[in-house]
């Protein structure tokens, strides 16, 4: 690890002020990606601004049919929250299968969403449930937020404060995890909402993406049989030592059908 200045502000305003004007300063939420990167000396920030001391950023609130989860809420807390389990059980289930217990007790929703790792689980939920991402400067709709590999609509110095998920009629998330890291080789989140069906895929491309053909078919007939003939092109999908693009394309179909079946249970 290279030397850096460590800050632990108590308020969001302090955090934003500390980051301001420092080009090489990095905010840190759970540190589940940043700390390993620092330990490997693959990054050399001048300052690390730890958001862990900001009480206003953690916690789960319910208003009507909308669950709002603070950016610093840990995966474990989402997975056991009675409110999340009652209103969006698929989201609690997803959170309970991220990484391993250590990651779930340190990693945060805001960190995962801001990082936009191509194999992270939360981005699939954010897109499929048509969530709204609130930051210190404004709000972002889920569509268009995830721009590519580790790239989001967030500007430098912009911090996620909370993410609001409207309650779906039905939803489920199914992933094929890498057995070592538990990252999604492919994960598919299917949600039947009042505005139609949304299908979001993570792990397969450079960032989470929606599958329009499946959404159209499922909007007419919400059964796994309705999408059994829909093939996903392997072009532009990820290919690595764990699986080829063709394999991932196949998995998208399998995970999507399993998710629809699970949502219908």
């Amino acid at each position, binding site marked *: 690890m290279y030397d850096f200045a460590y800050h632990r502000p108590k308020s969001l305003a302090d955090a934003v002020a500390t980051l301001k004007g420092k080009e090489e300063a990095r905010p840190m939420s759970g540190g589940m990606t940043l700390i390993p990167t620092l330990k490997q000396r*693959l990054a050399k920030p001048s300052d690390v601004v730890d958001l862990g001391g900001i009480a206003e950023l953690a916690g789960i609130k319910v208003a009507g049919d909308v669950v709002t989860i603070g950016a610093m809420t840990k995966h474990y807390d989402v997975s056991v929250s009675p409110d999340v389990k009652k209103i969006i059980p698929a989201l609690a289930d997803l959170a309970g299968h991220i990484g391993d217990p250590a990651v779930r007790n340190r990693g945060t929703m805001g960190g995962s969403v801001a990082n936009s790792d191509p194999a992270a689980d939360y981005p699939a939920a954010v897109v499929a449930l048509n969530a709204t991402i609130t930051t210190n400067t404004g709000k972002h709709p889920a569509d268009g937020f995830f721009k590519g590999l580790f790239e989001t609509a967030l500007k430098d110095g912009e911090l996620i404060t909370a993410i609001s998920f409207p309650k779906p009629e039905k939803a489920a998330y199914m992933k094929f995890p890498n057995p070592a890291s538990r990252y999604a080789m492919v994960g598919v989140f299917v949600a039947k909402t009042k505005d139609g069906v949304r299908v979001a895929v993570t792990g397969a491309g450079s960032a989470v993406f929606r599958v329009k053909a499946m959404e159209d078919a499922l909007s007419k007939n919400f059964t796994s049989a309705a999408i059994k003939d829909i093939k996903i092109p392997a072009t532009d999908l990820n290919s690595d030592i764990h699986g080829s693009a063709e394999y991932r394309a196949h998995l998208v179909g399998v995970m999507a059908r399993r998710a629809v079946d699970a949502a219908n249970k």
Partner: protein
Amino acid sequence: MEIKGEYKIAAPRDKVFAALNDQAILQACIPGCETLEKLSDTEMTAKVRLRIGPVSAGFSGKVTLSDIDPPNGYKISGEGQGGVAGFAKGGAVVKLTEDAGETLLSYEVDAQVGGKIAQVGARLIQGTAKKLADQFFGKFAESVGAPPPVAAA
């Protein structure tokens, strides 16, 4: 690992080929390029700083042009040392074809990464290489042709 793509550039082929050999244009289009100095007509040294997600690494290395066949294309290769981060090398075979007064640029990238970056980032290397190739050729197509490309494959 191989990555392919195609860009349509609204400029004649001779002009596109000249731009592919123009140091100032290359420097402007290579993602994260801080300096690019010409050693000869086919060799340059470069300093590149890449920031992808949590990783931020500086590379210094060599850029070589070979298999030069004006105005049909060439091969551009780069090789860099990133200190403790590891090393990266890669090349792109670039082909230019005429298409009704415009130029179709197609490329095929082959990249290798070693050292620490490869160990911790194995699952991300292809996505990263594709993103960098798209940034380079996208910006190149934009700066050489006007208006910007109609289709990026």
